[in-house]
């Protein structure tokens, strides 16, 4: 029996006694429940008040309830950890350390009787609770080593980068931040980041010190043999945004080429911009290729590339001119949707040779609108299909123009899934079937490739669904990122390769029929992937750069750090386009970005080396993505045109929110969240 009784003897709630108390407290008589509330005069004493543990070590906490006089009283408590994957506690108060860090164990008085020891009946704030800080120490450092530089030889007038590596007492790698020194300093010095500058020939010792451990390395500097450096470039008259490839040859006094001595290359800029220029350009070494660099100018002007090693230097000048790709978008037509928000679009040539578009709706009635866009200057809404949904986020039409697939979210039966619509006569679309098996949580995006639909589910995977019999779709395969808690947002399929956008897991390229990895729709095989730190990967569009043959994926962000205004006023998203060079599928590399300040990207399309981006509040943008890409594309003057879909009669008036573009027969169609379907023409 558990009652709120004073007991003369101390009662430490530990070990098996706690379990007994937990059970005992459950069977108090009804009379006890009718007692007057006790004043909140008790205290909970936990010992020890804090813990310092080693990994793998355990300790016990004891908890004692005391009354106002300081006498122990009976009462049940519970223990829990706020970091259960790093520090555990059992029901008896035994704490076990798993990972290093600072954590908290909470010891809390339970209450099984209303009004027990609290001012308000069940006020959590009145509950007796003690938080015990627990520090789990990093294992002691057992070994400190200086990582060997790939080049064991050093030369005067050059630098080398060293790194210290730690190993703890458990044999695990351990990050360290050592203090560096060299002697004699006349031969070499070292900065606090471990970069050695060699001043004279001779031997010198490098020392790293961390947590009482020392590591030393003796190096011998030789006289730098380089007396002459020659810088060559494949283009000394680039446009801004063109990537210039630099090569440097180093010679000794005898005119022999020296290959094993480090050479640095940088540049000096005198830009034409006299209005307070920002960054002028960018240079980087080409990984894996000796004595090779790439450079891109963001601003027009004069550039001097400077190669140096020891006392030798070589220079090469270049003049960058403005890219001069500016064009303009001309408004051709507008199919207004003002009663609700518009989502994605698809444009296609119908079986009758006329051109049609379908647009979805967002947060509304489950409508998909069909349009005749044969004359883009006179866009005509010709029909509407309504399905049980609140949002039809994505719409796609099969390449043969017969089947439209609608994604479904917010269905009243919470089954969602996808809906197939016969659009052979877009003026009279007919619902053919639905498919929601294991897609009940809502489908956000879809793609059609041949007779397969790729549909997202559970924010975690995409399914390949056979629609060869559109009246009876069948799932044939599934792809899920093999990581804990994978998350996905979109999928696009081209040449049998699926490009999925997976937020923090980045872009995944999967063989779903290409054959290069033996994949098929029912046996998707991952080929490559690339993730970037922001975790904002929302869309992906693959393109093979026509001039260079490079294979890029343009990966778009989506982020709303300032929220979304669904009514009344504009929204200010953030994010940009990441260009990822997948030419080497084994080693993808992020090489460039397109970022409009103070705005956020959504969907995109690339055709003929022009990227069309629905840049939400920054409207529709056209960008020259010809040639090799490097650096900040926006700053390089690669932007061709932009168009703001201002509509005073939009669902939110005059609030551009471009959603998705699609070029079609010489026009660019795009949907806008606040104003519907637009058609523009790019004039260059």
């Amino acid at each position, binding site marked *: 029996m558990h009652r709120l009784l004073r007991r003369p003897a101390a009662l430490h709630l530990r070990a098996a006694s706690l379990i007994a108390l937990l059970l005992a407290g459950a069977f108090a008589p009804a009379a006890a429940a009718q007692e007057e509330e006790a004043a909140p005069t008790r205290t909970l004493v936990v010992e020890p008040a804090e813990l310092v543990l080693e990994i793998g070590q355990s300790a016990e906490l004891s908890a004692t309830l005391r009354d106002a006089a300081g006498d122990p009283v009976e009462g049940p408590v519970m223990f829990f950890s706020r970091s259960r994957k790093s520090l555990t506690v059992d029901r008896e108060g035994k704490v076990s350390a798993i990972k290093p860090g600072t954590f908290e164990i909470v010891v809390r008085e339970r209450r099984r009787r*209303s009004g027990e020891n609290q001012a308000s009946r069940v006020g959590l704030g009145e509950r007796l609770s003690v938080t015990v800080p627990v520090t789990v120490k990093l294992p002691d450092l057992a070994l400190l080593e200086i990582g060997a530089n790939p080049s064991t030889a050093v030369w005067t007038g050059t630098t080398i980068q060293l790194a210290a590596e730690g190993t703890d007492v458990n044999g695990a790698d351990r990050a360290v931040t050592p203090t560096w020194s060299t002697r004699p300093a006349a031969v070499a010095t070292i900065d606090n980041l471990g970069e050695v500058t060699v001043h004279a020939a001779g031997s010198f010792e490098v020392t790293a010190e961390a947590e009482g451990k020392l590591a030393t390395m003796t190096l011998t500097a030789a006289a730098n043999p380089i007396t002459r450096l020659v810088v060559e470039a494949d283009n000394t008259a680039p446009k801004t945004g063109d990537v210039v490839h630099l090569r440097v040859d180093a010679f000794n006094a005898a005119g022999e080429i020296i290959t094993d001595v480090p050479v640095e290359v940088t540049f000096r800029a005198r830009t034409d911009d006299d209005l307070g220029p920002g960054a002028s350009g960018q240079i980087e070494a080409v990984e894996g290729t000796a004595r090779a660099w790439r450079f891109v100018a963001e601003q027009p002007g004069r550039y001097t590339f400077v190669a140096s090693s020891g006392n030798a230097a070589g220079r090469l000048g270049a003049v960058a001119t403005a890219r001069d790709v500016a064009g303009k978008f001309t408004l051709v037509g507008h199919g207004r949707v003002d009663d609700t928000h518009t989502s994605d679009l698809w444009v296609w040539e119908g079986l009758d040779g006329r051109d049609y578009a379908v647009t979805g709706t967002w947060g509304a009635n489950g409508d998909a609108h069909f349009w005749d866009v044969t004359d883009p200057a006179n866009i005509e809404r010709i029909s509407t299909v309504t399905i049980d949904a609140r949002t039809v986020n994505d719409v796609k039409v099969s390449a043969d123009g017969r089947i439209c697939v609608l994604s479904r979210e*917010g269905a009243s039966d919470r089954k969602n899934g996808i809906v197939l619509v016969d659009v052979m006569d877009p003026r009279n679309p007919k619902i053919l079937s639905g498919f929601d098996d294991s897609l009940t*949580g809502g489908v956000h995006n879809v793609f059609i490739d041949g007779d397969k639909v790729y549909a997202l589910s*559970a924010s975690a995977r995409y399914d390949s669904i056979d629609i060869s019999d559109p009246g009876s779709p069948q799932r044939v395969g599934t792809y899920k990122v093999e990581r804990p808690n994978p*998350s996905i947002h979109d999928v696009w399929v081209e040449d049998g390769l699926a490009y999925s956008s997976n937020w923090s897991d980045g872009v995944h390229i999967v063989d779903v029929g290409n054959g290069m990895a033996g994949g098929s729709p029912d046996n998707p095989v991952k080929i490559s992937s690339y993730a970037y730190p922001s975790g904002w990967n929302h869309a992906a569009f693959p393109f093979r750069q026509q001039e260079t043959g490079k294979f890029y994926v343009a990966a778009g962000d989506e982020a709303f750090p300032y929220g979304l205004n669904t009514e009344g006023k504009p929204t200010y998203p953030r994010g940009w386009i990441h260009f990822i060079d997948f030419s080497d599928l084994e080693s993808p590399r992020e090489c460039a970005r397109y970022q409009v300040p103070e705005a956020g990207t959504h969907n995109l399309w690339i055709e003929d080396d022009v990227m069309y981006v629905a840049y939400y509040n920054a409207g529709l943008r056209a960008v020259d993505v010809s040639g090799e890409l490097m650096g900040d594309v926006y700053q390089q003057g690669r932007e061709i045109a932009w168009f703001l879909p201002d509509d005073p009669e939009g669902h939110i008036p005059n609030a551009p929110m471009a959603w998705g573009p699609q070029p079609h027969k010489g026009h660019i169609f795009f949907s806008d969240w606040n104003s519907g379907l637009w058609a523009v023409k790019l004039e260059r």
Partner: protein
Amino acid sequence: MIATLFLLGVGTIPAATSEARLLVAAESADRVYDLAFDGSDLSVREVIDVGYQATEIEGPHGLTVSPDGKHWFVSIAHGKPNGILYKYDAETHDLLGEAELGLFPATMQISPDTGLLYCVNFDLHGDMTPSTVSVVDVEGMVEIEQVVTGSMPHGSRLSPDGSRHFSCAMMSDELIELDAVTLEVVRRLELTDGTGRRAGGGHGPDAEAGAQAGAGGAPQHAAVAKPTWVQPHPTKPVAYVALNGVHQVLEVDLEKWKITRRFPTGRAPYNLEVTPDGTRLVVTYKGAQAVGVIDLKTGKELARIPTSRPIPHGVVVTADSRYAFVTCEDRGAAPGAVDAIDLETLRRVSSVDVGLQAGGIALFPATQRPVAPSRR
């Protein structure tokens, strides 16, 4: 023995009041509505936008208010991929904290025993695998444990003393009892329709029936009874379970851990609430656009009260057992609604439209369980 667990919860009797403050989640609008009821009319006090990924429906589903009334909590069903629990200041509606939970976190409640929040991870995405109950320290906003229970757990409710947690596994036809302290599943009860059909052997009507059928029709899953809600009685060792798939409410004896009574209901009972005085049961009939009021002594349905809009979802009852508030989802672009029902006259006395797909509902302060006034 179990009876004492329930009697323990009986405490002071709150003053009867006809005024109420409540919260309602509009699942397809990513909004929470702060509503007031003055004894005759419902009105919207404030609308709070919730969520983090603006252009996607994130689905605020479950709501609860801390026992002291100082904070409210909402579960966000859709995430990347896990859902999120948000904590708000009850007066200012400032967001105070968040914790990542499991897949599609739904209904939840805070235990007066442990002070912890228990939220079922409904996992609506169609993978009929056992899901979990998340247990959250709401002071630190940290999920301290996930306990595997059943397939599509729903109806997260605690015993009056807060020491036991009950949930239904909708797609494995189970009632599951969790020890709220040890966080271990202690009992499971198979829920049948009373005809001998068992989970895995039949094809019940669509889950959450009453909504329009999907265009293509989903494959049937194994569950028969499809329990969607459980509510322990405030003073007796029994609990009531809504069987959405077979249009019944069960009474389960928590001492003997067996089904003792079955009440036929309107189509697709979904949520239910026992009046704090312990005499009646208020059940939303999702497929009948109505709310049923069942006399717990006789088992008879006293009234079937039409709701203002289709697809009634959640229900709460004021501490004085006088009024029930019911959310209605409706369909498509039609707004959701909240109805106030007078449980004395058994009539709907007020309605107010809210955002799309109104579902989760919580009284402010909480329904004040386990306090029970004297019997009528």
